[in-house]
């Protein structure tokens, strides 16, 4: 199962109600609205907890999302590009989050930089099908993945710190 802090985080994200994919026209709009609201709430929460760790935006239709995510290790901020599409079968199928920058650098990753989520993720998602949204996928999938993989990768020297000019501070 997910750890205590993750659970706490999850519970603070509002749950969604509309079960609709990108093809469902109006309903998708409603769904997208809910997605945004959840994300806003999640980001606000993160900011309040001084735990801001990603930037995300979408195209007009809300089917393609991209942005950045970062992880602080040993007082160093490691930043990665993040992208994913909303699958046709969404929300039944979870979105496949991808970190293209790390493609090929770790075993816990599919071709194209799609991260391998834990065994728990899929059943958990399936159980909460209309209720979980992108925010949940971030909190439940990517967050823990980063926490586990990045320090390991840094240790192995697969990724190195790149001095960023402005954004780090």
């Amino acid at each position: 199962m997910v750890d205590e802090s993750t659970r706490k985080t999850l519970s603070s994200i509002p749950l969604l109600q509309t079960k609709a994919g990108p093809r469902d026209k109006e309903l998708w709009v409603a769904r997208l609205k809910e997605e945004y609201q959840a994300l806003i709430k999640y980001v606000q929460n993160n900011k309040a907890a001084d735990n801001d760790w990603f930037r995300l935006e979408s195209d007009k239709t809300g089917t393609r999302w991209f942005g950045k995510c970062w992880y602080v290790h040993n007082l160093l901020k490691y930043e990665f590009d993040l992208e994913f599409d909303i699958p046709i079968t969404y929300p039944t199928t979870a979105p496949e989050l991808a970190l293209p920058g790390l493609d090929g650098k770790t075993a816990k990753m599919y071709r194209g930089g799609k991260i391998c989520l834990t065994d728990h993720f899929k059943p958990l998602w399936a159980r909460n099908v209309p209720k979980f949204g992108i925010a949940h996928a971030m909190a439940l999938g990517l967050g823990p993945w980063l926490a586990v993989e990045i320090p390991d990768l840094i240790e192995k020297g697969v990724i190195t710190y790149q001095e960023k000019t402005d954004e780090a501070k």
Partner: protein
Amino acid sequence: MPPSTDWDEIKRLAADFQKAQLSSTTQRLSERNCVEIVTKLIELKLIDVIFTTDGKEYLTSQQLLKEIKDELYVHGGRINTVDLAKELNVDLNQINASVAEIVKGKEVQLVSGYLIAQYYLEKIAREINEKLQLQGQITVGELTLQYDLPAELLQHNILEKYLGKIIIGKQDSSDPRIFYTEEYITRTKAKIRGALTGLLKPTPVTVIINHCNLADRLFMNLFDQINAPGVLTGRQAGALYVPSCYSKSQNDWVINFFKQNNYLEYDALSRLGISDPKGYVKRILVNEDLTFLSSCVIGSQIKLQLDTALEDCILSKSYMDVVSLLPSVLSDSDIINVLDELLKNNSKSTILFENTVFSNHFIENLKQNCMLMAEKKAEAVVKSGKYQQFYLEKQINKATEMSQTTYIDHKAERREERRRKAASGKGGGGTQGRETKTKAVKKHTKSKQAAHDSDSDESPNMSKKNKADLEIITTEDVETIIKETLENEGLDDLLTPISEYIQRSLNQSALALAKEIADKLIQDTSQNRKQTHSFAQDKINILINDIKLYEKGFKLMPSDQQPQFIKYLLKSLGGDILAEFCKYAGNQCNLSVQVDTLTIEQRNKIINDLPDEYKKTLVALNATLSDQNMELFYQAVDVCLSECGMILKKVDKKKDKLLIQNHREKLISELEVCDEPALCLHIAVLAIFTILTQNMLHASGRQVPIVISFLKTQIKEEDFQRLQYYHELVAKFLTSSAEEKVDVEDKLKVELPALKNMVQEIKKYK
């Protein structure tokens, strides 16, 4: 258009989302940051702080000190450092470091993991004082348990420090770990005193202590201060308290009892709780002359009493029952012991039967009572010949014994000896069989009983022979005589032993007496023999003389009548002579001839018993008696006389005349007093014959008519007639029946004086 508005809304939401993402994150230090900062600062040694155990808080050491002190105060001045660490959430090491800092000041000390403040000690002292006042007594051990503090701390830092200041009390001088209040001491003393005063009998100290709820030690300490009315047998817990009133009354009782009764029973003393009665009595009755017996002690008074009683008894020639004089508690063995001692000095004048002491005189008197009987019996036994027989047997036994031992072969002797040794247990393997046997014989004379005992193991033939020691007097004889006397004295239960005792000595004296009598008898007989010899000789001489005179008399008779007279003469006087011979011979041969006149049977018996030399001659003489031949008789008498060493004296004519005269006078005087008609006639006829013929006649009643017819020629006619008539009357009287008898008797009575006169007449006439 709803969809457009929706999308607008989405745009707006996206914008909002971007805004939200771009809005700067709150600029506050998160916990993580703080931790990082502090860690950094500590690393840089810019600050000195202490982590709490959960790591969420930091403390400065000053804060810690303060907090520790506060905690200490909150806990009343005493706290465990471990508790402190938990309470303050600070590592124990940090606490310990701080505590060391705190302890540097004098206010607080660390005792076995506890921080203890001075005011806590004071508080404890006050508590202790309260408790002490309440309980009266307190021990450090008790307090250690209560306060969970080291004894030493309590002892030195609290009790001794505050003693007299906060704690009002006293330290036990013998045990510094005990404290008590003055009141408690006095109270306890009072308690002990009360208990001790109340006690009347010896009590174990433990009982007293338990009862009063005291400590052993305190009791022992206080006991000395109390002047208790009694003593302790020891200082240990097992000691006994003996109240002086108890020992006093004990002593009083003992002394009083002794004074009253003059004896003390050990049992009684043990019942009073005296463990060593003998020693105790010795201690208490120091000046008394005591005799210690197995079950009791007796005083001199009892002994004195006994002595005086004994003296009295000896002097008054009576007896005394020792049991009645001695305390009833004495056992039999004790009585015997006392008697032994008592009789040591007087054993010669007294005899002991069971528990009664008899003076010898008393017994002697009893014996005297029996003496008469003893004499009689002794005489009887001698007369009956039993004694002589016994004596002879004894002699024979001795003789045979001697001879027996001489020829007894070695084997038998040895066997016998062995048996005897085993039986008697006597030592002296060297004793010869013979010696032992003589000893045994001696014993017989001492006591029949003993003889029986020792004999039972002897060879059978021996015991048979020696078994009968002559018992002249039996115990029963003695018993019957002395029974009355003893019953009067109430001593019948001792009858048998006394009788046996008397019987023994009496039998001895009777035996001695019998011996004496027997000896005397033997002496007498040997003396008598001479006398009897001459006496018998005289008698026989007289008889022979008489026979000769009578012979002369009947020679006057017609010769055809003579054999009758001879027969009668031989039968009567000849028989007498034979009897005399028999008596004499019997005496000579020690045959007992008691009667003076012997019947024919007795004569024959004696003759048969006589030894041969006498027997032959006497048998010959006896034969002549029935022969009617005087010559043969005389010859036989001569043989007998010579056999008996006697002589026939010569016949003196003058003497014969005198004899005849005497005979005549005797006949006449006999006639005078006679009343019997037949006898009168007989005598009268004999008298007349003697007067007329100057010869004696020996005739039986049957021969009276013959004599009368002989007299016919000699006397007057009328006298003859009278005799004839009288004779007829007599014959009639003897043959007549009862009715006629009276008639004839009357006639005879009338005639009798005339007959007597006639004899007188004839005498004068002559």
